[in-house]
């Protein structure tokens, strides 16, 4: 016999404790109360006619009944199983798809993930007590766990949640999962994010079509021609099978609201923009409301609107007309020029430094744009070599520096060869980085080449690039992130949500990481740096909750009609019934004075 609900020693302790308590209570029975009556004449006549039973035997029977009841109930708590009744020994592995689309809520109100857990529990309980069980997931949280008891597997299952991180895959490389060819592997999935499973795996579908209109993009951008004006850009997708009328609402920090209603045909993608001239600086939230929407996570998105103020820019250069002219033309920029080596140590640092051909020995007290700066300990390490004749081959289009920027025709005659290290490559040739960006130790962007060694200044996109650099480097630092785990380059930062509530965060290697469970705007405040994180789902792939490889199949395990998922050999129900029957018997005998 094994116990499914409690570990063996705990169960033994519980049984011993129960028996001890019952015996102690019976042993402690107080002596009968002495009652003086006028006469025992009638009582004597009554008792003479009744056959006297030994009190000890009645006490013993009563004690045994109480012990049987108590032990049966205690044993039922442990959910015992008898191997002989529960069938052959099997190895059962259940892989639960915990990708974001499993959070979709079907017409019945149940989430796909809840249904998946229900099926997984049924699969686990179907096996015998002596079988081995494994639960793992597609987000990699449980990959590498060993086969074990059903109780352990169920405990692991209860700890699973829908993962908000996009990457999800069947753990095909998990050696433990495939260590024994006899293992029965079940994969419970909606077939959206994880579309394939290795052969031999029995796929259990929990897919049911769900109406969903989701936000797949949301951003605040300066109007290119008027950098002081900002507009919100919104992209919606209708993944429902029928047209939807969607109410849009954009909320500002000071109560400003813009509402709009749009219609989307089935499968339509729609872009909408909102002019935020009336909006004050602070959080901006967009909400959509579509009827019968079954996926909430993509119905809201957050962004942060920076303060529209003059940026004080200090250009440290021995003379660069192009830079001076372009920066001077930006209406947001108040430009100061100083020659190299005269970096002021004023009390009020500027909003942005632009270093042309020079690099300060230590990180400056404000964000910086560095153009072919040379060597400095806090900058990407130059190898001392230079490379020539490079053409720009790739850019990180999602980076704020690259918005509306096309550098496809840029040719660089000569550039410093630097190690890309932990810096983000914003643009580069096939092999070498040409434009790098970093958030640590300060926010900076660096060109590895001098402007005069390239045709970049002659590109039509260069003023836009420079404007993006001013916006990104001098504005409030806002990091756009997906849900799941977010890590930002803030040392020992304290994370708070939009309402000021503290969010659990971890600090390691100079970075602060936290796990937003829902779209929101989070402030990360470190000792030297503060930034905002807009964590949104914004994923066309996730919002496409009906794009399933299992589309059309009925939910449930194949052949589930004939399977009731109830564990075989579980005795707890019988034990409880036995205890109830004994209690009834005890009640009956007590009132007839057979027991005490």
């Amino acid at each position: 016999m094994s116990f499914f609900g409690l570990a063996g020693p705990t169960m033994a302790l519980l049984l011993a404790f129960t028996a001890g308590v019952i015996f102690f209570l019976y042993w402690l029975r107080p002596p009968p109360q002495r009652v003086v009556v006028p006469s025992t004449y009638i009582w004597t006549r009554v008792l003479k006619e009744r056959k006297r039973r030994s009190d000890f035997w009645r006490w013993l029977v009563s004690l045994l009944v109480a012990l049987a009841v108590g032990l049966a109930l205690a044993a039922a708590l442990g959910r015992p199983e008898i191997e002989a009744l529960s069938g052959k020994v099997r190895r059962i592995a259940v892989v639960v798809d915990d990708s974001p689309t499993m959070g979709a809520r079907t017409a019945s109100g149940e989430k796909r993930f809840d249904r998946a857990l229900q099926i997984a529990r049924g699969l686990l309980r179907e096996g015998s007590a002596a079988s081995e069980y494994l639960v793992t997931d597609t987000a990699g949280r449980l990959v590498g766990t060993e086969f074990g008891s059903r109780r352990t597997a169920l405990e692991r299952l209860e700890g699973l949640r829908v993962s908000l991180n996009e990457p999800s895959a069947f753990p095909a490389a998990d050696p433990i999962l495939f260590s024994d060819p006899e293992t029965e592997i079940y994969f419970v999935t909606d077939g959206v994010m994880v579309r394939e499973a290795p052969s031999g795996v029995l796929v259990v579908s929990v897919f049911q079509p769900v109406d969903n209109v989701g936000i797949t993009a949301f951003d605040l951008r300066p109007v290119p021609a008027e950098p002081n004006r900002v507009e919100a850009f919104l992209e919606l997708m209708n993944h429902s099978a029928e047209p939807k009328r969607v109410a849009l609402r954009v909320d500002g920090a000071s109560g400003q609201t813009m509402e709009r209603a749009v219609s989307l045909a089935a499968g339509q993608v729609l872009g909408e923009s909102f002019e935020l001239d009336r909006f004050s600086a602070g959080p901006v939230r967009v909400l959509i409301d579509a009827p019968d929407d079954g996926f909430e996570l993509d119905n809201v998105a957050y962004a942060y609107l920076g303060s529209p103020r003059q940026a004080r820019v200090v250009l440290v250069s021995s003379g660069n007309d192009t830079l001076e002219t372009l920066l001077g033309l930006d209406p947001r920029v108040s430009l100061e020029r100083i020659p190299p080596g005269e970096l002021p140590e004023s009390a009020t640092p500027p909003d942005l430094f632009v270093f042309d051909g020079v690099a300060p020995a230590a990180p400056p007290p404000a964000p910086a744009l560095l153009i072919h700066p040379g060597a400095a300990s806090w900058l990407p390490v130059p190898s001392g070599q230079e490379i020539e004749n490079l053409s720009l081959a790739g850019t990180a289009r999602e980076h704020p520096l690259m918005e509306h920027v096309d550098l496809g025709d840029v040719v660089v005659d000569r550039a410093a060869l630097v190690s890309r290290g932990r810096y983000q490559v914003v643009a580069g040739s096939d092999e070498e980085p040409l434009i790098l960006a970093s958030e640590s130790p300060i926010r900076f962007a660096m060109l590895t080449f001098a402007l005069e060694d390239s045709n970049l200044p002659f590109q039509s996109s260069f003023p836009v690039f420079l404007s993006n650099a001013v916006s990104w480097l001098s504005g409030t630092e806002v990091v756009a992130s997906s849900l799941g785990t977010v890590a930002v380059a803030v040392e020992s930062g304290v994370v708070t949500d939009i309402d000021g509530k503290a969010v659990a965060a971890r600090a390691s290697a100079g970075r602060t990481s936290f796990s937003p469970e829902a779209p929101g705007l989070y402030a990360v405040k470190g000792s030297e740096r503060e930034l905002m994180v807009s964590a949104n789902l914004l994923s066309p792939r996730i919002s496409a909750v009906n794009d399933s490889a299992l589309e059309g199949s009925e939910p449930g395990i194949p052949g589930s009609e004939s399977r009731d998922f109830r564990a075989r050999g579980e005795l707890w129900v019988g034990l409880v019934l036995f205890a109830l029957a004994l209690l009834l018997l005890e009640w009956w005998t007590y009132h007839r004075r057979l027991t005490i």
Partner: protein
Amino acid sequence: MAAVATLFDEEFLKKLEYLKLISSRMLPGHMRGEHRARKKGTGVEFSDYRPYVSGDDTKDVDWKAYLRLDKLILRIFDEEADLPIYLFVDSSLSMDFGEPTKFDYARKVAAALAYIGLLNLDRVSVIGYSAGVSEQIASRRGRNQIWRIFSFLDRMTTSGETSLHRTFRTYFGSKRRRGLVVVASDFMDPAGLEPAFDFLRFQRHDVFNVQILSPEEMKPQFPDEAMLVDSENGSSHRLRLSPTLLTAYDEEMKKHQAGLEAYCSKYGWGYARTETSIPFEDLVIQIFRQDRFLR
């Protein structure tokens, strides 16, 4: 009289007056007090004539009739005899229970009957008994004796076990006139009642048994498990009270009462049963209704 104030207070005396009225209404004429005896004799009330025979007392000869009829005619008068009433009050320890106690209740009943008896010019004796006659007041006659009886009853205390048989044998062992024997008791006599009653029956007494029980005896309420101790002899019984046992007790109690009632009925005796929660005057009226006490 401080003693009178304790048990037979003003309230009690008012109730006695009430009982007096009730008794006179129920049996009009009898409050004049005399009980006519069966034998003819020396009374003052004329009953009949008969011829004179030798040996008759010449003072009863009707001389006017002799002058008219020239025959000696004797006037016959009913002899007026007082009825002896023996009031037995159980003073055993078992009577010291209930609220009020059965003993107090019995004493009040005895006092009321004694009062009515004295008003009827009967001869009233009050006897306290337990294992035997414990105390008694000699036979009294006349309403002015009521205070002595009250005082006697008030001084009585409870003690000892119950033995009716021994009591009757002791009391009626000496020569006593036949009369009405009233026994106020719970009749919980371990030796049984029949020997005692047979003794009274053989002596041809008229008997009225008043069984007084407390509500606690009728519906016992103990803990589930109890050690019952007899107040008289200290014997004990350990028992677990259950509905079944209570039912058995109830049945046995009824059987006991029915046995007593059946005996009384069989020999034309009076029987009344009461609980101490019932006002004693109600019991006395019930006794009147049975038409034995007042004749």
